[in-house]
């Protein structure tokens, strides 16, 4: 959930998508301004934070870059639970990763926070010559499912900051009643996930 203190908003954001789609690369581009040609695959989930100034307010993103491997699928809720925003990433050069992205959309629609701001990112837009998923196809899908869509490239930085700004802009501003003072996503009792395992 997004929490506010005066004009400062703190928002949990989760990146979901197939392994190799470029989630870590997008985060690293956004947070550190860097890009690695050989980005190591993420284990579990990595946490980053980055603050953006949007109009008169600041938004502090608390970002979960998840691993995307299947083994963590049943554990994903622990990362998207309570998230104010999600970026679902696919690789425009991979049909499979687009199919996988749709699965994540379905899962968030079923399990996620209904007010979640969800973005669909068609990453690796620099690989035009290898494209398998057209922008139109993805845009239509996004509109049908209430997501906003952008093609990004972590490599060239195209649309990377933009997608985070757009999320920040769309976050619901004040939710005073929903979020008691200073609440950050801590200490919530586990909902039966203590003994959750990879493929239960």
């Amino acid at each position, binding site marked *: 959930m997004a929490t506010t203190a005066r004009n400062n908003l703190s928002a949990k954001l989760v990146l979901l998508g197939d392994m190799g789609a470029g989630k870590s690369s997008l985060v690293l581009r956004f947070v550190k301004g860097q890009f690695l040609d050989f980005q*190591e695959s993420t*284990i579990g989930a*990595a*946490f980053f934070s980055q603050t953006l100034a949007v109009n008169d307010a600041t938004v502090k993103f608390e970002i979960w870059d998840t691993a995307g491997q299947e*083994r963590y699928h049943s554990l994903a809720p622990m990362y998207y639970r309570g998230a104010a925003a999600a970026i679902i990433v696919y690789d425009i050069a991979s049909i499979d990763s687009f199919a996988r992205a749709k699965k994540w959309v379905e899962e968030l629609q079923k399990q996620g926070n209904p007010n979640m701001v969800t973005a669909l990112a068609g990453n690796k837009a620099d690989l035009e010559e290898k494209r398998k998923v057209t922008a139109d196809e993805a845009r239509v899908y996004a509109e049908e499912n209430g997501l906003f869509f952008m093609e990004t490239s972590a490599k060239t930085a195209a649309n990377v900051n933009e997608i985070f700004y757009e999320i920040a802009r769309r976050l619901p501003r004040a939710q005073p009643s929903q979020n008691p003072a200073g609440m*950050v996503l*801590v200490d919530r009792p586990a909902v039966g996930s203590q*003994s959750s395992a*990879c493929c239960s």
Partner: protein
Amino acid sequence: MLQDDDDANSSSETDSIDQNPNPNPTTSIDQSLDAIEGQLTSISLHSIPPIPQIISALPSDSHSQLQQATVAQNLEYIDTLPSDSHSQVEQVVESPGEVDMERGVVDNSVSRGQGVLWRNNSDVDVDVEGQGSPSSSGYAGGKGTSSSSSGISGSGIEEISGDDEVDRVEVVNRSASFGASVDSEWLPGKRHVNEDDASVSWRKRKKHFFILSHSGKPIYSRYGDEHRLAGFSATLQAIISFVENGGDRVKLVRAGKHQVVFLVKGPIYLVCISCTEEPHESLSEQLELLYGQMILILTKSINRCFEKNAKFDMTPLLGGTDAVFSSLIHSFSWNPATFLHAYSCLPLAYATRQAAGAILQDVAESGVLFAILMCKHKVISLVGAQKASLHPDDMLLLANFVMSSESFRTSESFSPICLPRYNPMAFLYTYVYYLDADTYLMLLTANPDAFHRLKDWRIRIEMVLLKSNVLNEAQRSMVDGGMHVEDLPVNPSPLSGSLSSHLGQPRPPLDSTDGCKTLLGGPAGLWHFIYRSIYLDQYVSSEFSSPVNTPKQQKRLFRAYQKLYTSMHDRELGPHKTQFRRDNNYVLLCWVTQDFELYAAFDPLADKVCFLL
């Protein structure tokens, strides 16, 4: 002044070295360190030629004499020569002249009826090729290479490379030509993905590890792409199930110089094919660790996937973890923790470790299951919540998992992991944070929502560590290394404490005026040692130093220790107390008591009279 040494050690608390990462110890490894010194001293009394001036310099310390007596009584001479002598043809075994206890390390264990054993090549589908041209002395079981000249072992095994586990494995009949690539240091990720069982290079690897499912689906292969090894996996599966259907479990197959070791864990089969001459018991333990590593990533509940679907394909579940397995396998040839089942601590000054331990203790009391601060493979401090204890194997697997996954270095993370010895069925969550390039903090919890609290703890811990200079001290200790045999006192001064006073401090220059200057290494030709405290689950090993200073020699010594460990823990032969082995490379000594195990390597050129006691 000897008595001053003793005083110095006990009087200045801040200068003494604390090897115990637990801040509330009942025994500390400091005491053990003092004991090692005493033991080493008493060993050197026996193992060096009795140089008169040393004897006369010996203070009449009743404790050390007591130890001498113990050594003398418990000594058993065990010849290094296995009855399987064809593999030892080039080995000159110097018999010191005492009673040899014939001990067929290899063959005896085979005939002890561990499941089904095929010792004849004709039982196994092994391509027997003529004797090739051995090219170098690789690491074959810590004994140097000896090309087998016996007819029965002519399985076409040749050492190809000196430095890596490359050899020719002919398990399936295929024609072969040369062209193996040679690997050097461990690099993250899988190597040789383009190989499969038809590749010559693949078959030349000296040590293969496979994980497959009971339906024969490949799960992991050290070399080559799992999917391309489907046929090979099916062959392994066929062997295992053939034997299992007969009510037996196949554990070991010998084919010439190759050992094929199997481990069945429910629906998961693990196989090692090796011609490294490591004891098969060691290979089995390595398979156990490999299985443990898999459980650490997935939990044992993967078994349920196979109940639902016997043909379940597990490879996607392990996506991105090749580096974890390959680094574990690499550690089987350098990290003593893999066979000692103990962990080692970074040498630090007492006050430094206290500072780290105290803050971790606070965290543990706040509901964290384990708080572990490590520098590479060495523990700086480890604290568990009440009654929770961390098995050294779990620690090894966890540290390997974290260190081999580059992604933990990028930012802080919170990942599900399972500690197989703690609870193989459930995930725990581990907060991982690198404080500097080598030092990392792991906070383990059962609560999946604890991230933010652990993050806050980490910030506090980091502040304390910076304030008390722990990180700098750790870096310095990494550079200085641990104990150096050269620093051991040449004059036997039992329990003088001077050994531990060298730790964590710059090493003094070598004293060349000692009585043993003809011998390299430490006193009495001591080259290296490992001391394991059974009670503490910890070990200390000396740094490698001349003449054990090339990677090749280190690996050979490693394998020799491994063999020694295995023979000392041989259930069939009962517990051994002491063992001497002598070969061309070293004189090895092992001494096991209820409290500790000591492994030491000496210069083989030390006068052999000394072994007669």
